[in-house]
């Protein structure tokens, strides 16, 4: 303590050198008290597990997860993953799942928000109903849709048969060809309201004066949207798409509850696959190696995510 203040009393300040940093930290010591609880919780539940996962990915452990019996195997776990056929199947599923869910959720949410922007009778109620799927638990949603997709008594199948489109109810989630798109429909059902809320919030920040000015300048509805509204929604759209992409990449519940990854891995995505490797087949080391790979991918996306979220980092106010 004394040494720090002693250094700080040095006559000249050598720019952003070590003593300056320490002094800076010391001067702001009270500020850290505010963030400390958050940081401590995060450290316990994030930093430690990340370290642990990386460590474990180089070992083989007995199914009981008795860690004193673990064996160092180097990069064997990684090699096993990259050479397995399932890996490529699951990766392909993950890409399709993430891409389609994100793009379609965003597009539907965006369009809904625009359609809801104009005031009409019942708008509040309609908006409330449209938001509900986002609020209810994914477990409940999975069961609701599982029942709707039911191969014998499902309501969609019954409607298709009733309309004469199909002879018998289709096997939506029990056949390899249709299972992934069927699950994506469920996922979008739960996620488009999020995009809708975000875009609705963004629409409120579009200045009316600009829209009026554009109107006076003779811009059509479409031109006003394209030249005034849309540029204002760029930031919020970026953030929304990134949040959706991350959430979709990390999905677990819908495929896990509805199909458990089946049939024959057709609806396994990375997360469900890792979960099954770890808790289903007790291959902890391989699962950890998978997690590390996932981690690296996410760090890359994360870089853009944080950049988009903290768009205000440059404007430092004095305080």
């Amino acid at each position, binding site marked *: 303590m004394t040494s720090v203040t002693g250094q700080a009393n040095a006559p000249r300040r050598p720019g952003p050198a070590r003593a300056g940093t320490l002094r800076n*930290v010391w001067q702001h010591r009270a*500020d850290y008290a505010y*963030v400390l609880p958050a*940081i401590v919780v995060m450290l316990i*539940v994030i930093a430690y597990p990340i370290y*642990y996962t990386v460590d474990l990915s180089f070992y083989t452990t007995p199914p009981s997860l008795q860690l004193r019996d673990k064996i160092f195997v180097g990069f064997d776990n990684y090699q096993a993953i990259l050479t397995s056929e399932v890996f490529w199947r699951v990766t392909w599923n993950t890409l399709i799942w993430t891409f389609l869910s994100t793009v379609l959720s965003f597009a539907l949410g965006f369009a809904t928000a625009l359609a809801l922007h104009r005031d009409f009778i019942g708008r509040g109620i309609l908006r409330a109903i449209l938001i509900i799927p986002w609020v209810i638990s994914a477990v409940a949603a999975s069961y609701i849709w599982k029942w709707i997709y039911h191969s014998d008594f499902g309501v969609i199948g019954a409607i298709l048969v009733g309309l004469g489109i199909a002879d018998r109810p289709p096997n939506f989630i029990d056949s390899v060809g249709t299972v992934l798109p069927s699950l994506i429909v469920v996922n979008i059902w739960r996620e488009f309201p999020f995009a809708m809320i975000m875009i609705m919030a963004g629409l409120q920040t579009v200045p009316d004066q600009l829209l009026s000015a554009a109107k006076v300048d003779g811009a059509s509805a479409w031109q006003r949207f394209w030249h005034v509204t849309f540029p204002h929604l760029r930031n919020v759209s970026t953030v929304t798409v990134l949040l959706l992409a991350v959430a979709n990449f*990390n999905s677990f519940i819908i495929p896990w509850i509805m199909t458990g990854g089946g049939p024959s891995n057709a609806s396994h995505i990375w997360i469900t696959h890792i979960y099954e490797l770890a808790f289903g087949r007790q291959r902890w080391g391989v699962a950890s190696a998978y997690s590390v790979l996932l981690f690296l991918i996410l760090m890359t996306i994360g870089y853009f995510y944080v950049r988009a979220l903290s768009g205000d980092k440059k404007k430092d106010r004095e305080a």
Partner: protein
Amino acid sequence: MAETSTARARPRKRVDRWRWAGRIFLGLMLLYTAVPMVWMLLTSIKSGFAAMQLPPQWWPAEPTLASYQKLLDPQNSVGADFLHFFWNSLIVSTLTTILGVIVAVPAAYAFSRFRFPGRNFLFFAVLLRNMFPAVIFLVPLFILMRWLGLVNSHGSLVVTYLTFGLPLSIWLLKGFYDNIPIQLEQAARIDGATRFQAFLKIVMPLSVPGIIATAIYSFIGAWNEYIYAYTFLNRNDQLTLPVGIQRFFSENTTDFPGLMAASFMMSVPVVVLFLVLQKYFVRALTEGAVKH
């Protein structure tokens, strides 16, 4: 004369076309959203026999509340379990929410107001948490909780849930604090308040809408969480609703009315909570996240 009237009519027609397109689109979205929920409700008031018919009973011929009665009857073993799960979910979610607010509020305030070294780094680190799926943390956390003796306790869930509520809570609240003029605190400090008093007496009351919004978010997140609960808990009396319902279904594979009733009951608290307080949530998003 005739020319001018058609020239005038044309743009109006185009606007009408847009409006009709919007209405039709909203109608389709309403169908997409509501049909599954309506079907859930209709199924839940059918008997097990009525639910499994071909072609289906579009409207329940003999509506019954039997499934709900079963779930809410503490004398019945199913009901006793369900009420227990419900209670567990309530405790875990409430604790998570309260602790989350206590931790997030000062952190968000500090990130908004103070310029301490490492501020940006720490803020990014907190935001990054949202990047990672539960699964990455599952194995090590399971080992950690086992070591702490927290497996099969709600404490393990509360601590874990805290961390995934925190990033968005901090982010939303920070936006909220960014919009509260710093002069208010300066005035309070000149009026005789310490920095902390200024925060407590002036800023806190002003950020109540933001706090409500983040509280809803934490509560709903905790209420709906599945993976950790599924992994950390295996004693029947400890389960939360999502895991409990899954267990219920794996034992009663054909009781669709019961399952739909349980799904409905499980959704009611969060849906009601959200619908009542949604204006705070949208406001927090607008002020905190969207404006720059």
